[in-house]
């Protein structure tokens, strides 16, 4: 029996998840509908004009990440919760190494999050008249922030899929792990809105990169124990 490589197995898991998701669109529609509802609420209640010009960068950066974070919380746990609830987790466990499963699920969640960002960010910028001074910094903060968000959420999803009260536990467990990168991403977004050079945000990017590295490594190491429990 040949041993499959982790990468090819993880890609198979990723493709399988995309195909399942495409057939039902459960997670995608939950995420996008939630994001849309929150955007409307924020746009209506806060709007572009209700805040003084100098307060806008701070308030808008915070709101943007709140929308992204809570949208993520509605959909990213599905990758494991659905496997566990429908009874397919055992079949997966008997077929692929844990590392490949984590990687495949992480890719699936990143794809889902990318879709949410493509939907939320342009709408948010337009609805709130939020102007960005340094686009490269803004895009890098979004990229590194969402990698951290996906890596920690995917790991947390694996934990809650084995617990009861999965829906409530997911956010409770994810928030403490995600507070540091969210705080950093908010500052990074604010800097991108006010400073035109990327230099001002370099330390934020370093911080996010370090977090992404640490959380992905830790999740890789701990995932096997969680998923095979």
């Amino acid at each position, binding site marked *: *029996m*040949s*041993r*499959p*490589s982790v990468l*090819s*197995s993880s890609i*198979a*898991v990723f493709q*399988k998840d995309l*195909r*399942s998701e495409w*057939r*039902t669109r459960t997670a995608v529609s939950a995420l996008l509908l939630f994001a849309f509802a929150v955007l409307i609420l924020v746009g209506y209640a806060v709007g572009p004009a209700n805040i003084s010009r100098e307060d806008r960068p701070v308030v808008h950066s915070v709101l943007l990440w709140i929308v992204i974070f809570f949208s993520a919380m509605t959909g990213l746990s599905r990758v494991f919760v659905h496997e566990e609830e*429908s*009874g*397919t987790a*055992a*079949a*997966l*466990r*008997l*077929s*692929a190494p844990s590392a*490949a499963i984590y990687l495949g699920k992480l890719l699936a969640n990143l794809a889902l999050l990318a879709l949410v960002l493509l939907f939320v960010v342009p709408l948010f910028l337009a609805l709130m008249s939020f102007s960005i001074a340094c686009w490269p910094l803004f895009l890098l903060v979004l990229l590194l922030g969402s990698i951290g968000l996906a890596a920690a959420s995917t790991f947390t999803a694996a934990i809650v899929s084995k617990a009861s009260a999965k829906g409530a536990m997911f956010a409770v467990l994810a928030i403490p792990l995600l507070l540091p990168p969210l705080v950093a991403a908010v500052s990074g977004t604010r800097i991108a809105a006010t400073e035109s050079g990327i230099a001002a945000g370099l330390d934020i990017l370093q911080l996010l990169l370090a977090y992404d590295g640490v959380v992905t490594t830790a999740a890789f190491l701990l995932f096997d124990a969680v998923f*095979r429990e």
Partner: protein
Amino acid sequence: MLYPPPVFLKAENVTRSFGVRRIFGPLSFEVAPGTVFGIAGRNGAGKTTLIKMLAGLIRPTSGRVLVASSREPGAALLSPRDTPLALGWAAPDLALYGELTPAENLAFFAKVRGEDDSPKRIDAKIERVGLDPKRLASVETRFLSTGMRQRLKLAFATLSEPTVLFLDEPSSNLDEAGRAIVAKVVAEQRRGGTVLIASNDTRDLGLADEVMTL
């Protein structure tokens, strides 16, 4: 007789407790290649727990389980957790992906295990459990009847010619033709492999050479 005897599955003093409440054990037994081993017992005796433990899906509270890593004579005995690909598993609480067709399901598991996922091989696997691959080509698994899904689980369990095939309640939801398929799958598997059946059904247990009652 060869010594040590060739063994495909070995349980050494395994126990399982829930907190301090012991469910069963300590149990020790060996299953040789070509043998069908039955596990019987009243409801709640721990049949499903035991067979899950033997397949490495749950950890024994104490003791250990070893399974053959391949069908080669003298293959290494490893913890089932370290050689999951050598094991076949079908159980009532197992499910395949409802959103995928039967062929997509089996092709996915073949691909993830690094095996041939060509339509020819997959269709042959589907035919082996008495399903028509052409008729089911565009039917998602969630729309199949429970009996058809049970047959598909048997196809999943035997997909990679496992050393040990674990069947928990294999005939649940199956008609007479389905039961014949179970008998056929068991007969094929015992050629060079081993089968474990946990069941209360006397006809399932009738397939076994040896029955242990919990």
